[in-house]
């Protein structure tokens, strides 16, 4: 095991390595060179003077934000002799399960491709390219025949895989005892209970003001809201990433949220970012990918039918089609238990098969995937900006919702946490639902996989996502799922079938998430 100072220097080296050669690096160099012309720079105190000027002009802050961002995506420090798979996922059985799940998905994709006789990738003829360029802002008006395409998998297929996870090292007893776990997840991971969470999520406590509670119409704004907005404006003007993240824990005001999230994620809309997006767009125009049809189908089935999101259909294509082709996303596989799927493609000479990552970004979309993007359309309407924010959110958080890992924000931990919280604090309800064949996770899973997108009303959803960003964890999603069950417990106790339980929990659009979370975390007796 490394000691702390060695760990720190390793991290520093890694971050410096990553930031070297980035656009920020060259900008800093340029700025430093330019300020040499300034009269206040003296040769004797060159280093300090340059540092001072960079600080005053906001460049130090930008560097700070960049470092802060790297810390978020830095893989956890491991033993120097551990293989790279260890960084992705330390538990071998999880890694294996993920690998075999990936094999299944890829097989399904390949067989669809063979069945339909459509190539995985195809260069578009010039006419088609022209057409697509003209139609770029209104791809939603296209009505391609998608009846033969099916989603590669749906969340419920994934749930079955998770239910089947077993740790080969634990002894299983098939007897149901009081101490055993009643839920579907049969592996043991370290998840937090309420006392621990009360510490972690202190800012959600009853003595702190919250957006989503204390901005209600009956509460005078001077009690919390006005001051909070005032602080928010300051945070934005200071352009401080870490401060924005801390601030977001109490919610982001509607008028400032777009800027705050952008700050927390350290996404910019520099010419470099716009160019990158344009390059991706060019790739979309030149080549058609099989997964494009999956994206179309998903958007048509989910976002287009949603009362809030139907308007943004075109944006969703503009983001997701580009996302599929963005090889920069492959980086996140360093700390993702998943690995990018490889498909065999004829090499150019036609003589051999070679394995290439497919789709180029390594992410095969599933049913409901577009719902990760849809809520963001309320905040950003420039496609390149929307794209940057979505991509960052994906590689920090969303990927964990559909890969098998032991990470505390991974889907397995979230499901387990949900079940454990429910069993610990609403045992009667859990038992009842279990008896009538309505395992709670079967209902809650779809909420968790999508981080509640499409289930809550948009303003409530964004208040929830404020906290995901603020606490840099998806744990709050599991807590909310439990809180929802707690809220509807009375009605759920009356039902006698899975179908009626689903019906009680079908419509979450009127829920107010912050009061539910606050009550569950801080008013539940333990």
């Amino acid at each position: 095991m490394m000691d702390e100072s060695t760990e720190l220097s390793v991290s520093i080296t890694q971050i410096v390595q990553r930031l070297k050669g980035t656009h920020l690096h060259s900008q800093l160099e340029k700025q430093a060179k330019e300020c040499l012309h300034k009269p206040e720079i003296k040769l004797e105190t060159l280093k300090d003077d340059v540092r001072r000027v960079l600080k005053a002009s906001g460049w130090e802050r930008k560097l700070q934000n960049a470092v802060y961002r790297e810390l978020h995506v830095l893989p956890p420090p491991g033993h120097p002799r551990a293989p790279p798979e260890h960084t992705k996922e330390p538990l071998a059985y999880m890694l294996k399960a993920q690998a075999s799940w990936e094999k299944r998905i890829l097989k399904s994709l390949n067989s669809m491709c063979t069945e339909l006789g459509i190539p995985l990738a195809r260069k578009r003829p010039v006419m088609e390219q022209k057409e697509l360029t003209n139609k770029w802002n209104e791809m939603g008006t296209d009505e391609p025949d998608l009846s033969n395409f099916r989603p590669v998998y749906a969340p419920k297929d994934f749930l079955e895989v998770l239910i089947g996870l077993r740790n080969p090292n634990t002894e299983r007893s098939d007897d149901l005892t009081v101490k055993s776990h009643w839920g579907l997840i049969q592996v043991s991971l370290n998840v937090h209970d309420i006392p621990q969470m009360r510490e972690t999520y202190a800012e959600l406590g009853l003595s702190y003001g919250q957006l989503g509670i204390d901005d209600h119409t009956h509460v005078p704004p001077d009690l919390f809201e006005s001051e909070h907005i005032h602080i928010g404006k300051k945070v934005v003007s200071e352009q401080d990433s870490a401060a924005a993240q801390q601030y977001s824990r109490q919610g982001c005001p509607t008028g400032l949220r777009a800027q705050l999230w952008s700050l927390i994620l350290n996404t910019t809309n520099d010419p470099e970012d716009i160019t990158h997006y344009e390059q991706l767009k060019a790739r979309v125009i030149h080549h058609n990918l099989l997964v494009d049809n999956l994206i179309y189908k998903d958007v048509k089935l989910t976002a287009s039918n949603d009362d809030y999101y139907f308007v943004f259909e075109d944006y969703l294509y503009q983001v997701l089609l580009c996302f599929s082709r963005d090889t920069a996303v492959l980086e996140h596989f360093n700390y993702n238990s998943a690995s990018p799927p490889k498909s065999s493609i004829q090499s150019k000479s036609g003589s051999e098969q070679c394995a290439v990552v497919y789709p180029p970004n390594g992410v095969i979309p599933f049913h409901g995937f577009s719902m990760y993007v849809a809520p963001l359309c309320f905040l950003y309407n420039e496609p390149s900006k929307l794209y940057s924010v979505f991509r960052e959110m994906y590689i920090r958080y969303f990927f964990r919702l559909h890969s098998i890992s032991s990470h505390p924000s991974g889907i397995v931990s979230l499901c387990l946490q949900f079940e454990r919280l429910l069993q610990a604090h609403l045992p009667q309800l859990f038992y009842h639902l279990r008896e009538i064949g309505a395992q709670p996770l079967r209902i809650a899973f779809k909420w968790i996989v999508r981080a509640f997108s499409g289930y809550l009303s948009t303003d409530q959803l964004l208040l929830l996502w404020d906290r995901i960003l603020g606490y840099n964890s998806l744990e709050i999603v599991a807590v909310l799922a439990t809180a929802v069950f707690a809220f509807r417990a009375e009605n759920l106790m009356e039902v006698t079938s899975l179908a009626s339980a689903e019906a009680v929990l079908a419509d979450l659009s009127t829920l107010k998430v912050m009061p539910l979370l606050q009550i569950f975390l801080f008013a539940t007796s333990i």
Partner: protein
Amino acid sequence: MSKNKTTGHKAAHSSQRKKEVEARSCIRYRCGLTNTIQDVLNHRPGWVEVKDDAEWDFNWCDVGWLRENFDHSYMEEHVRICHFRNHYELTRKNLMVKNLKRYRKTLEREVGRLEAAKCDFFPRTFELPSEYHIFVEEFKKSPGNTWIMKPVARSQGKGIFLFRKLKDIIDWRKDGSRSEEQKDEAQVESYVAQRYIENPYLIAGRKFDLRVYVLVTSYIPLKAWLYRDGFARFSNTRFSLSSIDDQYVHLTNVAVQKTAPDYDPEKGCKWQMQQLRWYLTAKHGFETVQTLFKEIDNVFIRSLLSVQKTIINDKHCFELYGYDILLDQDLKPWLIEVNASPSLTASSQEDYDLKYRLLEDTLHIVDMEGRLTGKEKRIGGFDLMWNDGPVYTDVGLEALGSSCLVANTHLGCVNDREKQLQQLLKPFPGQKKT
């Protein structure tokens, strides 16, 4: 604007109302429509439907019935009817324009340019054929602009088309493209030609307009209520000036959208007003949107003031208007038209609920049961917007102390009407308070 100093009158009003109501054990209503209003009236405790020639206390009629019967009906003190006799001064496009222009001139003369400029929410409009020549002058001043031709008295988008060249309407005048139906009509139909707003505010490339509900219970003095709910109606296709023939792009009426080839009834093309307000706040910030909604209030108030002296005031009458507002890219609101009979047919469950609440609250305000004092500033989802003068919230005065006055309107804000109604209203006679 005179401040409301008639509190004595109000007290007399409410006790008189009570007298009017006490005598009756039930309220007899007539209803000429078969949509949401029918349900609302049906469900109201103590209200009984009457038909044919029976006497009624309340009439929700259509404008046709009004035209034929109003002048011949004798109405007792307490009776209420849902239209003003000559509402068309506000709702017929040519008359509205005339009244607004006249009011604007008066303001300019009596108060000044700045005040008159507050009436510039109506795109340049000319009545045809009577104003044809001044229209041509204006048209020639700005070549290349798009204009929209609308029949004066029709609704639901019928008969509307866009044009850019004078040649297009000269052809049309020669009966070239008029339908058979129009040729058969005995009367010469009036049209208005209006500057088309070429830079509408778009959301995700789509054009939309706003439907807002305003209830007027009296013109002299002017008393108007604004409903918090409403909706934004999206065009199903993406906005582009290159296809002015595609009426589906430009017209956002749900009635027209329903006939568009890619219309999917499962897909809502509406957003609730709260959704829109929230979206705009996220995009432009709180203050900008606050200003926008103030300007929207201004549209309602000015348009009503402009017909205040023309409309025949009658204490039996009230009217629920559906205002159509369009926003341009600079977030300036434009008045498209005012409907005296806004559609009460529901396009979805959500739509039904909205219209149900709206009508229920309308009936609360009309107050056949005599439960109100007359001093209320808010009833259910309605906020009192104008009461012979601007109306301010109480909150603004108390919390801020200083002379910072906050308007009493909350379009697109939270509508917690049930709670408010419970606190405000006494239960119906014979009904226990829940």
